[in-house]
């Protein structure tokens, strides 16, 4: 049961990773990074149950919180750059 779920999560992670690596725009990557974080949280929780140590859910909680901060920071700085030099940011977003 847990194993099946974990495998499903791993496959999803791989798919998300493809998006993160290929882009093409920066927004794709931001979304991919966020989603990857979410998947990690779930995987963490699953591993905790698989290893029969549910007390380690603390870790999953940490990941969830940190992931939120990371994504906010990315958005914040990205927005900052778009506003300060709108040309360069757009270009770098589209060219990849």
């Amino acid at each position, binding site marked *: 049961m847990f194993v099946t779920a974990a495998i499903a999560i791993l496959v999803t992670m791989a798919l998300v990773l493809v998006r993160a690596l290929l882009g093409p725009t920066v927004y794709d990557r931001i979304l991919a990074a966020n989603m990857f974080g979410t998947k*990690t949280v779930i995987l963490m929780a699953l591993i905790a149950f698989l290893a029969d140590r549910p007390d380690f859910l603390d870790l999953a909680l940490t990941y969830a919180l*940190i992931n939120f901060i990371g994504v906010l*920071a990315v958005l914040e700085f990205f927005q900052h750059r778009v506003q*300060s030099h709108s040309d360069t940011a757009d270009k770098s977003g589209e060219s990849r």
Partner: protein
Amino acid sequence: MTLVFGTFLLSMMVLVAIAIVREHNLFVAVMLSAIFSLLMATNLFLLDAADVALTEAAIGAGISTVLALGALALTAEAEQRHRPKYRWLSIAIMVLALVALLYSTQDNPRIGDPEAPVHQHVAPWYLEQTPILIDIPNVVTAVLGSFRGYDTFGEVLVILTAGIGVLFLLSAGRNDLLPNPRRIPDNTIRLRQHTIPHVIGKLLAPFIILFGLYVQFHGEYGPGGGFQAGALIAAGVILYGLVEGERPSLALVPPNLLYGLSLGGVLLYGGVGIASMLLGGNFLDYSVLMTDPIAGQHWGLLLIELGVGMTVTGVLLSIYHAFAARDPH
């Protein structure tokens, strides 16, 4: 099962690492580094290193991403393409080194081998003696805080060095060492304009700090301790700064306080060591702190973890503010 999971995750990690090196947009490279860190942390957890996984997540994926983004905002966002000299020569040397190293790993003990030398010496003693001598469930905390407490003292000093160093470097040509809230232009847009992140961020920040405190004082019983707690608390305050702006964040937690926390943590740690010397023990011998050696160990661990937490919080936040409050021009 975990072996297969690990193999899969590790392969992804190698792919991400190569992608990071090839990526020319630095902003994207930093984001990929965060993914790399998350993968690393998951692997560490699979390898039964819960404390390390917690630290890697909080510091690697959280704090260092934020710091790198802060530095990027002040520098450049794209790498210029250039062709280094002697490219193929050094690639050839590296491939050679790679092959040599791969060859040298063939004699390594297989992963998880119970017969490996590392599981025969020293480590069993820690696992056996911790419940007797220190009486806390988390053996990692016991080794970190007591058996190898001197290393941890050094580690706190490393963090302090980085903190003082960043303040020193970034104060060149300026009139004050610490960021001054009144001098920061309040024209930064920040996320205040966007209601959802603003509200959620503000709601979440106190809970993150609370969770940080839980990790701080629960470190003897579960994964966690001063480092993880310090990183989490710093992350919570950083979140507040992200959604509210630098000036309110610095007004909430003034730079002087952060500087005091960084120095105070080291003094507390060193003070515990000196107190144990004055009571007739060796440096960092907590057993002499109380009449009952085990109670002494408990108190010692509690105090030094507190010192670690203080310094880590103070230094990480000072460094963050040093970047975030800096005028990019």
